[in-house]
């Protein structure tokens, strides 16, 4: 069975002859929605977004309309819109395609959003490593400014909003919205405590601020085009729209697919879309939505009654439909849709050591559990891969993760802890087996034969 893609956000991505300049975008119907939007009432636009049920595409999946609703309109302070283009979650590469190939879609989405929330100044905080992306966006902004799609008195509506690109310094934590705000203010990217610093009330420069992901802001354009209620019909209940599933890792043909939420299962994407495992391999585990999500293991099964359909389900990893609700039932999340696949040649201890090293390196060091815990897990798992581990290190590793999750300032604590909290119980036998073999001086490989 072939994968049925429904390309909305990615409509022109990889399209033959489509370029990222404004003429091409306008030729394909670009900025038409903005023209209509600036004639509408901002509160009506916000209602459309609320009706659409759109969930933020940055990973946490918080309903965008709700986020906008929390915005403090009464403070009298300026309102800011910030686009979070700091796409640094390992395994995720959906926003990058949008920025490089279709920047005007983002700009149009941002201008509609800025109009809807009444922002006079908008920012794109782009990942430091996306140097070309920043150049493309800057060029696109100048093109749009020349045509009066942003800047003063947009399209004669009397509404003005400027847009600025800011390049980050290359820290993962600056993708966290309050860390991003601090960084945008020119400070060290330390996430803020919530309460009291909820961006909707006390965000950038202590003013009400909305921080949305690139894809989310692009979606606003489509929601206004279709209408919120119509949009909500796409996908499944509780997760409307499409998802971009970006598969990487040990499959034959890694790549991305834009599918309607819930339209395909993970297995269909992996086998039909990506051509299945490499020759002679079997799938072993998948991290479904960006590195910080909980890992799923082949052989696990989830049973229960699905809240949407009311039907009983009995799923293995391959049977999980790709929507946030179903993923949630399996104890993980679809999040950014960046799935990482591991097969039976993967040494889980090595993989986890790699993950732990990443989070130890990226912890900002502000709050104690994440700062000390992530480095401890890194040092411990490094010792495991060095063959110097003890059996009691396995429960210890899990216990360290348990001491981090839920006790930190920002979600980096969970991000660092969840992979360990899920992988250690699920692969405990492999952990213990390897430690035991290493203690005896034997070589260890999960699949029983050496890696390539």
């Amino acid at each position, binding site marked *: 069975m072939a994968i049925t893609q429904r390309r909305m956000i990615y409509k022109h991505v990889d399209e033959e002859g489509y370029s990222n300049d404004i003429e091409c975008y306008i030729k394909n119907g670009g900025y038409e929605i903005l023209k209509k939007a600036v004639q509408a009432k901002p509160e009506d636009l916000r209602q459309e977004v609320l009706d659409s049920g759109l969930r933020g595409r940055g990973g946490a999946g918080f309903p965008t309309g709700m986020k906008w609703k929390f915005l403090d309109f009464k403070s009298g302070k300026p309102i800011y819109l910030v686009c979070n283009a700091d796409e640094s979650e390992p395994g995720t590469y959906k926003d990058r395609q949008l920025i490089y190939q279709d920047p005007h879609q983002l700009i149009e989405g941002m201008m509609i959003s800025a109009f809807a929330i009444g922002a006079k100044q908008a920012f794109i905080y782009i990942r430091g490593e996306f140097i070309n992306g920043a150049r493309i966006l800057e060029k696109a902004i100048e093109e749009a400014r020349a045509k009066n799609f942003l800047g003063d008195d947009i399209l004669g509506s009397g509404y003005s909003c400027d847009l600025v690109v800011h390049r980050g310094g290359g820290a993962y934590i600056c993708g966290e919205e309050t860390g991003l705000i601090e960084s945008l203010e020119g400070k060290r990217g330390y996430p803020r405590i919530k309460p009291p610093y909820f961006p909707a009330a006390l965000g950038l420069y202590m003013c009400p601020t909305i921080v949305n992901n690139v894809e989310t802001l692009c979606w606003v354009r489509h929601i206004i085009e279709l209408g919120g209620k119509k949009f909500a019909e796409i996908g499944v209940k509780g997760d409307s729209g499409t998802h971009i599933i970006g598969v990487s890792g040990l499959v034959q043909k890694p790549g991305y697919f834009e599918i309607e939420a819930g339209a395909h299962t993970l297995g269909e994407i992996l086998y039909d879309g990506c051509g299945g495992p490499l020759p002679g391999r079997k799938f072993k585990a998948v991290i479904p939505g960006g590195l910080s999500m909980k890992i799923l293991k082949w052989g696990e099964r989830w049973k229960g009654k699905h809240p949407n359909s009311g039907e009983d389900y009995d799923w293995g990893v391959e049977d999980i439909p790709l929507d946030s609700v179903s993923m949630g039932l399996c104890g993980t999340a679809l999040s950014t849709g960046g799935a990482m696949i591991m097969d039976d040649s993967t040494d889980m201890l090595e993989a986890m050591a790699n993950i732990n090293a990443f989070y130890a390196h*990226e*912890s*900002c*060091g502000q709050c104690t559990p994440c700062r000390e815990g992530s480095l401890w897990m890194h040092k411990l798992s490094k010792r495991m891969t060095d063959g110097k581990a003890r059996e009691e290190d396995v429960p210890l590793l899990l216990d360290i993760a348990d001491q981090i999750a839920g006790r930190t300032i920002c979600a980096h604590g969970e991000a660092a802890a969840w992979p360990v909290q899920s992988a250690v119980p699920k692969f405990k036998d492999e952990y213990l087996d390897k430690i035991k073999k290493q203690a005896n001086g034997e070589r260890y490989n999960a699949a029983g034969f050496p890696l390539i």
Partner: protein
Amino acid sequence: MADSETNLVTINIDGNEHSVPNGMNLVDACESVGVEIPHYCYHPKLSVAGNCRMCLVEMGMPMRDRATGEPVLDDDGVQKIGWMPKPAIACASKTMPGLHLKTKSDLTKECREGVMEFLLVNHPLDCPICDQAGECRLQEFATDYGRGFSRYVEEKNVKPKRTKLGPRVTLDDERCILCSRCVRFCDEIDENPVLGFTERGSYNTLTCFPGTQLDSNYSLNTVDLCPVGALTSTDFRFKMRVWFLKPTPSICTESSAGVNTEVWSREGVIYRITPRRNDLVNDTWMADTGRALYHQVEAENRMKSFRVDGNRASIGEATQRVRELMSVGPVAYVGSGQMSVEEQWMLRKLAEVEPGAVHFVYHQGEGDDRLISKDKTPNLRGGLLTGLLKTLPETHLHALRDQLEKGEVKTIVCFGEDLVKAGIGPDLLKKANIIYLGSHRNDTTDIARVLIPTLTVFERSGSFVNQQFRLQKFAQCVPGPAGLLPTTALLARIISEIKGDAYTAPSNPMLWREMGLAIEQFAGVEFAKIPATGLELDSSAFAQLPFVEEKGWHYEPAAEPAGAESSAH
């Protein structure tokens, strides 16, 4: 605070109802009712950072139905508590009606154990050689809330051990728990943002920004703030174990701000001075210069023996000579703002027994609009209240100089003030007999006929009245050199010598009973009952006087400050 104190709310801590001010920080509120919430980064005078995570507790609010707003009741008809799914930091929360806390639950306990373990994994566990041992929050909370053992077998991080952050502060980065109190102090209180972190994660290192150093006159407050042994005072570092030290409440004599201090001593030797919290005077801060004042106790030029005409004498010989010289001719007194209220009262009594012109010295200098005022003496107001002064004294001694030139003064009784430095030349001074009561030698003591050594502020007790007309007590910290008496006793002895009656050493409570009867503003004041944070006196009689002090952290001048005259001395 006044309005919130009347606005009490009931919160529930571990099942017990407590009445606390509404909107108060939870850490403070719990402390006020005797429940300790351990914390490192939170400080009542700084912004909330919420980074140490030690104050995690379980919080909940009485449940209400979302749709109707009706309370949700359990089977017993009691309103259910909606507990938050995750523990929350107490320091970022304020008291509100009906708030429920669990500070002893398993989850809270486990959170504290977890944070303690994390804080210690990269902290050197060498308390026996750490300067902070004995007053270290890490030690205290590890004992109270930690597991008592470590599961950490990896190598610890290595960081710089002795960074000189400034002229007075040395940093041991390995001990730093990155609570950021010092950073916030420099930003928010000192308004001199020089401190920051470099690196990332557990490798975070506290340091100064390039080209700056921690050289503000308030830099040592960062040492007080530091909950661990990371920031240390270069002066005090490795001099003494803190558990040997005895803290004595005292008052800083640096200026008329009257900063409340604690003087730490052992076996008669002072090792350091730290600020004592008084939210109405100095919060929890003090200037670095004030902390160095204890060096005067052991100074080279300290006077330790009575002298008459250059020869060592007994106290009896000295007082006898004082009587003889005072009967030679007209007497002038030079009082000082360094004298305590009690001493000024005794001087007034002496001036009544042996009448003479009373001059008064107080030093004007640069203020910093914070905790150092322009009046460099701690007790000018005392001189006014005791009646020693009728009005603000001149900032110079021209009147005394004129009297000397005209030969109208034969004897000067001087209290610790250097007359030569005050502008009266030695040749002119030699025209009179100088009786000098003071603690240190100077140009005037070389000329004096009688030298009576006195005790420093650390060696006697008494009270000062600061710029706010706040009466504040200081206690004796160290005994002082053998054979020396408090100035009040010396003055009593001189008075009885002159009068020819029996001498009794006056005590401060006794003097206060006298003063309470004689002075309106002191009516009802008992020395023993002056509160630790001072007693505000009625200053209405002096409201129109042009005091020199300008606005400070806790001071608003009542009248227009006297123009910025050039320093008189």
